């Protein structure tokens, strides 16, 4: 009885909070569908009279957005493939192999989690410039190839596999690599998927690094394209088109997240707390 009466205020507060969180999305979408005069109307209009879906097409033509999408997808794909291979191999070594220097090397991995990416930008920028890799895909991909947090996360999962499985597979004469492929990977699939998703989200939203090392429009990624084409620095903003573009950039990740959110939540929650 007591518990039930307390739940109604809980729901009301949660609905209020959710409403506040959703306002920016609603405003983005509503503005994206306005005509130019509606977007510039004072005082603002909440909803457009006639949704202008053509704004999305127009926004795509203001800047080479399809090109930005293509670049982002290529870079995201390459980063996910590379960092997954790197992560799986390293976390397997840390969880199932015995070798001199293991603790020291693992400590280095943990320590590098503390180093802010922003500190590395300077030298990496110079490295890329000296290699003549400005405006190349490899410059966008390679620095993201290793992710200490992902190694840490996957190692935790791999360690939970019963030792019996390992002993049995050794007796059966399975090599490490086959053990990894046939036993460990199938068991750790959810966590591997988590690390892939986290890398993907990271790449999709990354801004500072690509902005530094790409100067050509043909190599820009979505965040940079968005900020380049639609800020006051580039002249007057057409807000309805800016918001159309913002919507287009936002939606793919939201769809991905809605379908695979389980993996993201589990990954985040298991990453942190170890009493």
């Amino acid at each position, binding site marked *: 009885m007591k518990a039930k009466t307390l739940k109604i205020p*809980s*729901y009301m*507060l*949660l609905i209020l*909070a959710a409403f*506040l*969180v*959703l306002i*920016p*999305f609603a*405003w983005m979408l509503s503005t994206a569908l306005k005509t130019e005069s509606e977007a*510039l*109307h*004072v*005082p*603002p209009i909440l909803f457009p009279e006639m949704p202008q879906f053509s704004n999305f097409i127009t926004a795509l033509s203001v800047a080479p957005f399809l090109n930005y999408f293509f670049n982002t997808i290529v870079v995201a794909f390459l980063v996910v493939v590379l960092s997954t291979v790197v992560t799986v*191999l*390293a976390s397997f*070594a840390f969880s199932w*192999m*015995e*070798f001199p220097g293991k603790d020291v090397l693992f400590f*280095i*991995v943990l320590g*590098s989690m*503390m180093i*802010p990416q*922003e*500190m*590395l*930008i*300077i*030298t990496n920028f110079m*490295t890329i410039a000296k290699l003549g890799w400005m405006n190349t895909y490899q410059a966008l991909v*390679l620095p993201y*190839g*290793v992710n*200490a947090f992902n190694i840490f996360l996957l190692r935790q999962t791999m360690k939970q596999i019963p030792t019996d499985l390992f002993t049995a597979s050794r007796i059966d004469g399975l090599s490490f690599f086959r053990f990894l492929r046939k036993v460990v990977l199938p068991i750790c699939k959810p966590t591997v998927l988590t690390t892939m998703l986290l890398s993907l989200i990271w790449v999709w*939203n990354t801004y*500072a690094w690509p902005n530094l090392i790409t100067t050509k429009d043909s190599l820009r990624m979505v*965040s940079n394209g*968005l900020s380049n084409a*639609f800020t006051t*620095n580039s002249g007057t903003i057409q*807000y309805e088109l800016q*918001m159309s*573009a*913002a919507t287009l950039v*936002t939606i793919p*990740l*939201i769809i991905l*997240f*809605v379908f695979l*959110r389980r993996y993201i*939540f589990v990954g*985040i*929650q298991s990453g*942190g*707390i170890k*009493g």
Partner: protein
Amino acid sequence: MLKKRDYKAYIYLLPAFFLMAVFIMYPVISTFITSFKEGYRFLTDSFVRFSFENYTGILEDETFHRALINTTFIAFICVPFSMLTALIVALLLNSIKKLKGLFMTLFYLPQVTNIIAAGMVFALIFNNNFGLMNLFLGLFGVDPVQWISGVGIAASGELYNQSYMRCLFVLFVYSTWSGLSLKVVLFLGGLQNIRKDYYQVARLDGTSRWKTLKRITLPLLSPTTFYVFITAVITAFKAYSSVVALFTSTYGPAGDNTKMMITIVGYIIDSLGSYLTAGAVSTASAAAVILMTIIMILTALQFKVSKRWVHYK
């Protein structure tokens, strides 16, 4: 485990450590060294001499002071507020069963939203003429507020401060919104880890809900709280893209030439942007070393404090 030495392990680790050596370890060392090179020229890789010039230069630079103040504002004003909000939301979520998944999904959306896109939306919401915020305030009879405006600020210190406060408020609202997602999920994870029997005992004893929260939930949640605080403050110190999206790459409202809303990372990237100028890269390096020192001290401090009063299971 088998007592064998598996030298093959080094092959498994090679890709990770090769990439780490090139893109993490070497940069840390190199940035540290570069930060002491006076008048470093990137193109010729030459410098005048080793000195503290870059550091003293930064510490006297008003733009860096601004960056430090703004970053501190995000870390120690915005973070605690969004933590409190997230904790309340997580407690509410933990008390319900139906629709919990839906709510969690909704609250997580800001986290998967592109930062640039989100910043643009907030800039538009706070737009002086056709923004939602002024429309909302208008319902209460408040005249439109010039939220992000640099009109007259160059001539008047009073107007400058007023404009600055308003920009900080915009940043505050944005930070609360964008910081909520991760914290809610982490707090909820922590709450779910608390053993149910504690609550059963409390209920049998007839302990009030407020007391249960104060005596059981919050102490047992403290490791999570600390983890959330550490990661959030560190994230706050790295703030950059959000500020660019809200206030454009001039780090302020139109008409401001003081980079009013710059952050430490913004300062690093700005210096780096003019890398052909003598001393620019080394200034950026010194700022990066300062940033890294701050982050390391915070991490160490928080771990130390957390050992003293955090309740471990």
